[in-house]
């Protein structure tokens, strides 16, 4: 197993555990799903993804790739079941940052969607999840 891939798996496992422990006290019900990924040599490996549900709103924290330019890992957040893009988490220098497009009603201009970059913490992930829940249509 390559060192980078092993590190990616460990980072994603730690992220999933962290997001579970931060979101569950805020009434999000979580469930892990093993996700199959292939590396550049087409070798299959498995990392956890995490589905979070509160009321009718379901989102998935979905590992995407490692060793991408400017980042050690990328994990996306989608609204289910349509898989609409919500946010992306990037790992750099061992720290996760969440990039979240502001909802249209709080954007000052309508030309390009404005994106907020926040260091990942219990407060910021719940801020983003609360905003998603407030603006999402029923996703069940």
């Amino acid at each position: 197993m390559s060192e980078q891939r092993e590190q990616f798996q460990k980072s994603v496992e730690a992220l999933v555990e962290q997001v579970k422990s931060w979101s569950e006290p805020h009434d999000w019900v979580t469930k892990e799903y093993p996700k199959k990924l292939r590396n550049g040599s087409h070798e299959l490996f498995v990392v956890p993804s995490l589905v979070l549900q509160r009321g009718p709103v379901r989102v998935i924290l979905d590992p995407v790739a490692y060793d991408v330019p400017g980042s050690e890992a990328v994990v996306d957040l989608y609204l289910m079941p349509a898989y609409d893009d919500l946010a992306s988490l990037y790992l750099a220098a061992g720290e996760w940052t969440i990039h979240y497009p502001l909802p249209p009603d709080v954007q000052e201009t309508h030309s390009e969607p404005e994106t907020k970059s926040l260091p990942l913490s219990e407060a910021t992930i719940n801020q983003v999840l609360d905003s998603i829940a407030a603006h999402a249509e029923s996703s069940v």
Partner: protein
Amino acid sequence: MPNRRFDWHEHIKDVEKEYKAARLAVDRLAAGLTASPDAITDDETRAYLRNADANLEGTYIVRLFAAFEAALRSYDRARHNDPTREQVASVLIDTTGGRRRQGISATVRQGAHEVRIVRNFWAHESDEAPPPMSIADARRRLQLFLSWLPDEWP
């Protein structure tokens, strides 16, 4: 090994992401050619680059629908316990049930049929141009349909 619906959802999302990467690459190349017209001197390649640009979203909608159709075919074969069973996409959409055999809503089925019609146009199975549909809209309709299938099947 059982088929997991989750894996099919992921596969469809991956196709959309490949489209976004290809869109970015083609847009960058086109912008580069505007700035440096001599970067590609072969006229035929320049002409096909214009076609690639114009047809990119349609090309990926064909791939998106192929992934969706493969998911439905896999479920249909498992449901009928017949690994060689072949049904056309329109029949698969109309006859696929749902969780606990409940019917899939007419609105969701119609959404998938509309993507199928767009696929037919881009795959040159039909000359009749359908209303425009973005790849995000197509992905949303197909994922909604798939979400009605059971979590897994044999």
